């Protein structure tokens, strides 16, 4: 693509993006650095370089603590719960949102506007306001501290956004494509599976990732609607305790934070190409 950005603007943008990158990377580096410090080094600048930043002697004690040490009882089940809850709620959310968005973008039915505005209104709702009523309801009907008890509120969080993103994607796909498939002998379902769905793939991946992160990073629901048997990592981190009440479990928390950040980073790196839209270019004259 040809752009008329002058060299001066380019340099300016470059400097600005470097500043922003440093700004966002430093906290992450700090967490990694802290997770590699021994308990003694935490508050002692003499054992660290760059002020109190990087430890002179790297130790893996904190990782050992969360995977096989005292904190593993808390961390490992939580990690497992996180994975199950997030994968299941992502899959359900994407499937439901795909069908819903397809119907919204292709069909004319009464109540279409209502669905879209309701979806938008729901996503404006502060999540903390839902927690107390849900807590009471979940306890009454036995969903408290269960995995479905977390998946359901996550669906409520992710579905509206997924529907909006996906219906925008479906609307971009020329309708002729589907009509061509139908004339070529496809049923509506075949046209959807063979033509529309592959073209909407970037949108599906985008929504899947957003849905996954929403659930993965959630703290409010997990800390209030679970006790042990469904607690996810963000909530579990807040229950970490040190060796005694005078020792802060900072290192262990940081180690756990690093561990749960890794899947996020991997997901983004793997799918970033998929997220880039523009797969439809060349379908029609353009």
């Amino acid at each position, binding site marked *: 693509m040809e752009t008329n950005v002058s060299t001066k603007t380019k340099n300016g943008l470059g400097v600005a993006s470097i500043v922003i990158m440093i700004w966002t990377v430093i906290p992450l580096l700090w967490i990694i650095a802290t997770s590699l410090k021994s308990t003694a080094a935490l508050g002692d600048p003499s054992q660290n370089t760059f002020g109190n930043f990087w430890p002179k002697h790297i130790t893996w004690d904190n990782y050992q603590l969360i995977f096989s040490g005292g904190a593993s009882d808390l961390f490992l089940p939580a990690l497992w719960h996180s994975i199950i809850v997030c994968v299941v709620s992502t899959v359900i959310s994407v499937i439901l949102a795909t069908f819903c968005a397809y119907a919204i973008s292709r069909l004319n039915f009464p109540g279409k506007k209502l669905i879209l505005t309701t979806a938008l209104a729901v996503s404006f709702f502060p999540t903390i306001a839902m927690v107390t009523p849900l807590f009471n309801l979940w306890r009454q009907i036995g969903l408290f501290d269960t995995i479905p008890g977390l998946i359901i509120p996550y669906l409520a969080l992710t579905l509206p956004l997924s529907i909006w993103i996906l219906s925008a994607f479906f609307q971009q796909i020329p309708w002729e494509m589907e009509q061509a*498939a139908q004339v*070529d002998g496809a049923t509506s379902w075949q046209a959807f599976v063979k033509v529309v769905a592959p073209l909407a793939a970037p949108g599906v991946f985008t929504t899947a990732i957003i849905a996954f992160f929403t659930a993965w990073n959630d703290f409010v629901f997990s800390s209030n609607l679970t006790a042990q048997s469904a607690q996810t990592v963000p909530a579990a981190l807040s229950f970490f305790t040190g060796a005694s009440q005078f020792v802060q479990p900072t290192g262990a928390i940081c180690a756990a934070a690093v561990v749960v950040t890794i899947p996020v980073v991997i997901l983004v790196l793997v799918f970033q190409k998929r997220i880039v839209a523009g797969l439809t*270019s060349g379908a029609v004259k353009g």
Partner: protein
Amino acid sequence: MSSIELKHIVKKYGDGFPAVNDVNLDIKDGEFVILVGPSGCGKSTLLRMIVGLEDITSGELDIDGKRVNDLAPRDRNLAMVFQNYALYPHLTVFENIAFPLRLQKGKHSDAEIDRKVRDASSMLELDEHLERKPGNLSGGQRQRVAMGRAIVREADAFLFDEPLSNLDAKLRGQMRTEIARMQRRLGITTIYVTHDQIEAMTLGDRVCVLKRGVLQQVASPRELYEQPVNLFVAGFIGSPPMNFLPARVDGNALKMPFVDVPLDGALAAKVKGKDVVIVGLRPEHLKDTTVESSPEHSVKFNAVVDQTEWLGNEQYAYIPYEADGAVREQLEELDRDLDGEGLRTQMIVNLDPRSRVLEGDEAQLAFNPAAMHVFDPHTGVNLTRDEAKAEEIAAESEKMRKAALERARKRDSADSEKSA
């Protein structure tokens, strides 16, 4: 291979406006039929009703004598080429062409699909592009892929929805002849929608002219040109368009802006009882008497040329005139129907390129009154249409169509014998 019959086809949208109104059309097996008209005349809607992408409000659509009104597009066995091609961007050219075959599960083996796709691609000269994605192809190549997807199916009929409108002028000419050749070779019934009258005239065995959802005339290109049924068809077919001049019937003469034409027996009877008529005169029927010999029985007159355009093989001269108040409204409405801009009324003359008439000069022009079409100003009906002659032309073009199909078949069988 099949015939398509449209009986009283009507399409009404939600607001009750008939986009297509009472269309009757009988398309014979192997015929190339064009639907043509200005934008918004319902030609694409009609095509989409035939293929099944639009519901038919009322009327009956038969393919090979079988009512198909309620069949889904996939059950009608028609192939369609869309205006924007509608190729599948995630599939290679090969898979795009193979798509309809793969949908007929179990009907074709992989080897068979491969053979059929390669046959189509060699016919369309797409062999070296089979593994590419549509996004990397040029407009003409995409167009050919869309055609390949249509021919590979061995459908009952081809439907084209303005397939060439996205190509540049040169490519359009090439693809036009390519489509004509392919249709003759395959001998398959074809319906082709266009707004371009050159495509309509060159491709069609028969051309259907539509105006606001109503079929005006269905005839061979020659009949449309020589014997139009009304003002609209006469104005739509022909480039540059036919000149429409207001004429006052005055005793034994037709008084036109530049000249009085004597009324002879037959014409006099036709315009009897009318004060005003509209005279249609094609630009090429006007001659510059200084360089060309004037036609027999011609009427001569002089007029001041306002503007000339020299194109090498021909030359156009523009001669403005004041339209008579009585027919001005009719002419303005016609102009609107033909997507015109309502500019000044002017007469266009197709001069001989040798003519040295310059802007501002007085040209000496002549025309044969027998070449005139005379239209009723209120109904727009062509009063000078010769039914006997029209039938003659229709019979002749039908004979030519059959001969062309026969020739194509012979050549095809000769080819296959040679290759066998």
